[in-house]
């Protein structure tokens, strides 16, 4: 079977003045359609850089990203990003923030009324239709992130990129939002690539967990399949041996074999 999204021998080097830092080294990864893949690693290992490369926001030094066998090297709505700090435009309402992307992506294929309905449909997918006329400053952090997810979903991306989407949220809101994302994935069958530093989150949500070694020159250390049946229930998993085994594997990787070394 052909890979849906393929990261092919990606190297990334940053030049700052005369200093060069190799951030990523020889990253190879293939993701199937509908798969939920998490990338986990210590901070500074270049996982966000990797996501930016897939999004097209950062160029590669060597190698390329293939989506449906076509090289992608610039940003586009087919790889919509949910940013870590929501990145909603504060001068637009919730509705207008989602509408901005919808108007661009479906400028020709949908009529005005259809686009309006599509925005509302996506807002109700994340249970935010009630706040459509509020501005980002008037809603909570969790709600902002929901709108961020709606904005990305509304672009009908081929791959949904989540950049530590729950990192800035409190634990309860985070759990709630994780359940929402799981439900959406179940319902819509999106292909999702998520950056995270939370082991439980990675195991709970993913089909596969990509573990990265510490930078500089970070590479993929190990890829772990998560053989848990969906739909997954947070409470039932807490005692599930399969879940605990996966969790153990990731923890071992992160804290024994590649424990975080403070660079400074």
């Amino acid at each position, binding site marked *: 079977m052909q890979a849906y999204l393929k990261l092919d021998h990606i190297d990334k080097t940053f030049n700052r003045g005369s200093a060069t830092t190799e951030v990523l080294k020889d990253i190879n990864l293939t993701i199937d359609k509908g798969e939920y893949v998490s990338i986990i690693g210590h901070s500074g290992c270049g996982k966000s850089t990797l996501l930016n490369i897939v999004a097209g*926001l950062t160029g590669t030094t060597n190698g390329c990203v293939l989506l449906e066998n076509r090289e992608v090297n610039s940003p586009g709505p087919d790889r919509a990003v949910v*940013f870590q*700090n929501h*990145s*909603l*435009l*504060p*001068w637009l309402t919730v509705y207008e923030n989602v509408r901005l*992307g919808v108007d661009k992506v479906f400028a020709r294929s949908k009529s005005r009324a259809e686009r309006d309905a599509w925005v509302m449909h996506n807002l109700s997918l994340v249970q935010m239709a009630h706040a459509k006329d509020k501005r980002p*400053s008037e809603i909570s952090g969790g709600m902002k992130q929901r709108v961020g997810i709606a904005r990305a979903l509304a672009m009908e991306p081929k791959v949904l990129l989540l950049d530590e989407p729950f990192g800035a949220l409190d634990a309860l809101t985070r759990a709630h939002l994780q359940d929402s994302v799981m439900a959406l994935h179940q319902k819509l069958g999106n292909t999702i690539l998520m950056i995270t530093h939370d082991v439980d989150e990675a195991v709970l949500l993913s089909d596969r967990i990509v573990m990265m070694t510490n930078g500089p020159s970070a590479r993929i250390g190990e890829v772990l399949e998560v053989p848990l049946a969906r739909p997954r229930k947070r409470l039932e998993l807490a005692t599930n041996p399969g879940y605990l085994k996966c969790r153990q594997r990731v923890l071992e990787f992160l804290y024994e074999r590649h424990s975080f070394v403070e660079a400074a």
Partner: protein
Amino acid sequence: MNMPMRKSEAISAASPAVAEVLRLKVAKPSYVQAKLLPALTAIAARVVPPLVMLAVILTVWQVLCMKPGATLPAPSKIWTEAYDLIVDPFFVAGPQDIGLGWRVLISLQRVAIGYGLAGLIGIGLGTIIGQSVWAMRGLDPIFQILRTISPLAWLPISLAAFRDSQPSAIFVIFITSVWPIIINTAVGIRNIPQDYRNVAAVVQLNPLEFFAKIMIPAAAPYIFTGLRIGIGLSWLAIVAAEMLIGGVGIGFFIWDAWNSSHISEIILALFYVGIIGFVLDRMIAGLGKVVTRGTAAG
């Protein structure tokens, strides 16, 4: 708490003949008590102190300048001497003999043209400069020097270039107010968070849409700071420039009154200048508040 009670008592005492209807009214005088009175109190709290201070200042002024031999006129003397000008700002008695309202309007027209140009060109240039690191590095020091030049110092140059007073005055307004607008716009554009640029990139906004939908709203608080400094400088500059170039503006009126020793008229004109400057500043600030209400909150 005393005020509302007295109010309701006054209502019940006022019309005993229609007691039935009255009882209903007394039962819910809530609009007056809950909305109107607090609002009036709030307004009074803001308006009364300045009025009191104004009265104090006028009294001190009156006392100081009433003595025989005082060099400046007291308020009462200004009232009698400049009575014609005070009561009718819009009279026309000849090409050079017009009310202060007209003079202010003529000055405002010059400011509108000069400042309007400064706004357009300042925001445009500022946007370009803010986008480019090298343009910023190259031009910022030059602008920082140019902006410290006094408006009046530009006047001889502009007279030499335009050989006419009207465009020269407008140029002085322009050149005085354009620098803060350029610099603030450029800083605002540079400070647009990378997140917003990323959003625009993912959504694939074209440069024009990016300018209108991201850059201008994101930089609006900075732009309005520049615009507000600019309007203040414009108004400072026009009064000074008009003193030198003549004509019928408020600035030349002051100079003309000085030459004719009409000190009372000068003081009256200063009131006009101050109040108009204050109103201009508030207009731009108010506009800025409306335009940036989302950006500032986020």
